[in-house]
């Protein structure tokens, strides 16, 4: 999508004349002078000479983000704003915690993240562009799907903004590598990935030691009203597969489809998993009291387990903690056998 980037660049050039026009047209209203053009563009101007993935303090490095935009980053980012909790966790895991200068109000892990300047809540309308600018970032990491409008703003002021948002373990590794490349800590990235891979293999092995006849049908309840589950396209869906569990809604298309209460009863899961809260704490009694659910095997046998919401709803470095606790709850024998 190189053309898109070029277009954006052109329109930025074009906006100079627009700006001049706007100035003459509108500014008498506010008696405001226009010194907006002397932004510190100079030190950020991009030299594109096709030197992909090479870092040279002069030319910068070009990467492709999840929005398929080409972004050139000059120099090593020292002031990073992270707009999602999973990205913040990943940055800390890569040893880049000290370079973070802005996070969202949901970024609560690790403990050090809480002390970093907040630039808004996580949703698009709750983020303050001013607060981001005020943090003087040289790199902004946003969510590729929900934060799209931010890209326009920060492209205009020539601050590199990268869209992220892994939806499975492989993509998480890819993003770790990408951030490693950008922040020039590839060694940390590779070692993080290697250790995660090793742990994942161990967990998978344990989960697959369960005999096929003992596999359990699992319902993962993402939300209660409306009742939502995790489809196979989501990373939670992937965790179920990695954990050798049979997702009762493996046939859905959306990442987090709404499902009817009736279909849960019909598909009769052996185990129900849920994050710790759905706005308020999830309780076994609430589930058991739903009409018809008393016949569900998971309710009859008290097989309702909660997974730490912060682990399981963020596709970040703690994802494997979520997988481990899922396996622990669903197949307790698998992990004890192993050790």
């Amino acid at each position, binding site marked *: 999508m190189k053309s*898109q980037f070029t*277009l954006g660049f052109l*329109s930025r050039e*074009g*906006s100079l004349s*627009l*700006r001049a*026009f*706007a100035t003459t*047209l*509108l500014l008498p*209203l*506010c*008696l*405001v*002078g*226009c*010194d*907006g053009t*002397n*932004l*510190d563009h100079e030190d950020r101007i991009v030299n594109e000479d096709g030197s992909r993935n090479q870092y040279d303090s002069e030319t910068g490095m070009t990467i492709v983000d999840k929005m398929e935009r080409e972004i050139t980053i000059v120099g090593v980012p020292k002031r990073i704003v992270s707009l999602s909790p999973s990205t913040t966790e990943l940055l800390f895991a890569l040893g880049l915690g000290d370079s973070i200068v802005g996070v969202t*109000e949901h970024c609560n892990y690790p403990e050090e993240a809480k002390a970093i*300047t*907040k*630039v*808004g*809540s996580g*949703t*698009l*309308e*709750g*983020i*303050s*562009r*001013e*607060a981001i*600018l*005020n943090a*003087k970032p040289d790199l902004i990491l946003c969510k590729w*799907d*929900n934060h*799209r*409008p931010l890209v*326009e*703003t920060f492209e*205009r*002021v020539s601050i590199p903004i990268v869209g992220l948002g892994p939806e499975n373990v492989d993509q998480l590794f890819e993003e770790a590598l990408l951030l490693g490349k950008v922040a020039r800590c590839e060694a940390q990235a590779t070692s993080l990935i290697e250790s995660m891979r090793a742990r994942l293999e161990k967990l998978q092995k344990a989960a697959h030691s369960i005999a096929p006849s003992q596999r359990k049908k699992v319902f993962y309840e993402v939300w209660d009203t409306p009742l939502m589950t995790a489809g196979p396209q989501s990373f939670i869906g992937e965790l179920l597969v990695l954990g050798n569990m049979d997702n009762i809604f493996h046939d859905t298309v*959306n*990442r*987090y489809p*709404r499902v009817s209460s009736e279909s849960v009863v019909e598909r009769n899961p052996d185990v129900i998993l849920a994050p710790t809260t759905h706005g308020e704490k999830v309780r076994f009694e609430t589930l058991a009291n739903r009409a018809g659910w008393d016949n569900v095997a998971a309710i009859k046998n008290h097989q309702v387990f909660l997974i730490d919401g912060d682990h399981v709803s963020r596709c970040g470095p703690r994802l494997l903690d979520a997988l481990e606790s899922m396996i622990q709850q669903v197949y307790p024998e698998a992990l004890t056998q192993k050790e």
Partner: protein
Amino acid sequence: MGERRGNATNRSWLLIGFSACIVLFVSIASLSVGAASIPLANIGAWISHSTEGVTATERTILWELRLPRILSAVITGVSLATAGVGFQGLFRNVLADPYVIGASSGAALGVSIAVVTGLQVTYFGLGATSLMAMAGSIGIVMLVFALGAISRQTSTITLLLAGVAISSMTNALVSLLMFLNDQKAIVILSWLMGSLAGSDWQTVLVASLSSCMGVGILWSRSRQLDAFLLGDAASQSLGLDPLRFRCWVITGASVATASAVSSAGIIGFVGLIAPQIARLMVGPRHALLLPMSACTGAITMLVADAVARTIVAPTELPVGIVTALLGCPFFIALLLSRSMRGSVAT
């Protein structure tokens, strides 16, 4: 008698001039508030081109974010308020608002389609959502007007009913699109709540041009709007062609509304209440009511956006929430004080 009326008019123009000064004052004051605090002294330095004391970051924030945003607030407020006056005159009903004949639902549909299909066009510096918002709102209003015109009477009631019917259908389509694309629903939703955060110079320029066009059309019809309030028979005896009149007012009001929704999303309340406040202050004559409404609309939006930016900083509130939360109590207080004074007088 004539002199008394002249005095009242002069007083009204004085009020309007005073309000315009308030708009200017609030604009400049709100340059200094936001998630990043910039003292008023620095704003002064910035305005007077002085380079001392204003950091590069502050300059970027002021020029790239706040100033476009403040101008957007003014334009949105002016557009919605004057469009409100137009529709209220057209329907002879003070409960009409800029969205009454489907402008908001049309814009919402346009935006939903743009978001769902991932449309990536840019035209004259406007992004896909702004363009589709404008296209949607004007398209739906034209459809409603065509429906109203087909039925031979072309009474305002037919128009209103067609508007309500088409709006509900369009809203249902928006809900359907959001339901079927739940991953993108949040993007649509944040747009529906209205925000000025995405304002930039291009949106300001385009919105100001289209807003000027809409407001200009309405302004040029102000005498006719006065006449129309006298009723169909009386206004036609004064030589008013009802179909052409409606056509002009709808065009003006819709273009103004579209300019507001394309830059700020859907912002309720301003278009309904700003004209009422203005009416309480300068009375029903449109030549006075239109400029006064423009001022009250702009002030409402400016204050609401300043609050939206600061009250839970660094988080932002959608400005549409603030306009209603702050504006309603103010308006009710004004109504009560008026009616109390009124009851004393009679």
